[in-house]
């Protein structure tokens, strides 16, 4: 069964908006539930980490390039380089490694 891309976009856009709009319109006091607070605190790190590895290694033509990009990006982010700079460093590493290996 083929699905409509515009419906996919609408569904995701609607969910994205509701997530952002609900708390700002409903909550005026801090959430007290400790589990919910803790869960929400960890969610970004867990989701992003899970999506980064091993996907970064599989995205490139050469696996070694992906591994080196992961290491270089981690080091750059560790030293608080900006979002933009970390992204550029990862790209540069892949480009250079694949220039040599592929």
């Amino acid at each position, binding site marked *: 069964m083929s*699905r409509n*891309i515009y419906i*996919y*976009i609408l*569904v*995701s*856009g609607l969910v*994205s*908006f509701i*997530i*952002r*709009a*609900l*708390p*700002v*319109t409903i*909550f*005026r006091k801090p959430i007290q539930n400790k*589990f919910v*607070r*803790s869960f*929400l*605190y*960890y*969610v*970004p*790190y*867990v*989701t*992003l*980490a*899970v*999506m*980064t590895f*091993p996907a*970064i290694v599989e995205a*490139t*033509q050469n696996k070694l390039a992906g591994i080196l*990009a992961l290491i270089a*990006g*981690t080091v*750059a*982010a*560790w030293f*608080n*380089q*900006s*979002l933009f700079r*970390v*992204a*550029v*460093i*990862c*790209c*540069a*590493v*892949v*480009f250079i490694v*694949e*220039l040599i290996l592929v």
Partner: protein
Amino acid sequence: MKTFYFESKKTAFKEGLRDGLPIGLGYLAVSFSLGILAKNSGLSPFQGFLASLLNNASAGEYAVFTLIGAGATYLEVALMTFVANARYLLMSTAVSQKMHEDTPLIHRLAVAFDITDELFAIAMNRPGYINPYYSYGAFTLALPGWAFGTAFGVIAGELMPLRLVSALSVALYGMFLACIIPAARKNRIVAVIILICFVLSYVASTVPVLAQISSGTRTIILTVVIASLAAIIFPYPEESDE
């Protein structure tokens, strides 16, 4: 409603433009790689533009495009969007605390529309209540940067040599790293959890039963399980930045 802000609407808007410029430029570059992924999932430049304009989320859109490419159900897409963007619940909650309680609903909704990691950071960084016009100034450059960057990615992804596509396709992961690693440096528990995520994510992608379900669903399962366990074992470290 002017009375509880430090500056006039016009000044706030201008300051928003100023702070939004580097963010918009960064978005333009980073969302380009998102466009490449969108193209691989069968989206047109306009569809990429629209998806970015409505979602404003790197991880969320990444997940959505991957699911579209895999022919997932609408429900899967809704669930994944929710899980990948769950952090905005927390950010929006923080924003709600920093808004004057008389802020009209329309301004609340408009400010909420583009709560992203970066725009959230600059809004929370200012003294006093959030002035919606400051946010609108920043959105004026950030929104087009993100949306057009995605469309350019869909268009140019086709024209670009494989070598460049391969290099740019890791930009997004670089961005993810930039979001999680600084927190790992500040908080050892976060660092350990990230490592555990890497290991479990790798294991899940190779173990026969788990490897067969879609990568999106795998991400939902892993996120809910790991974040829940982390929340139980290491309850919220009070007052962290993000």
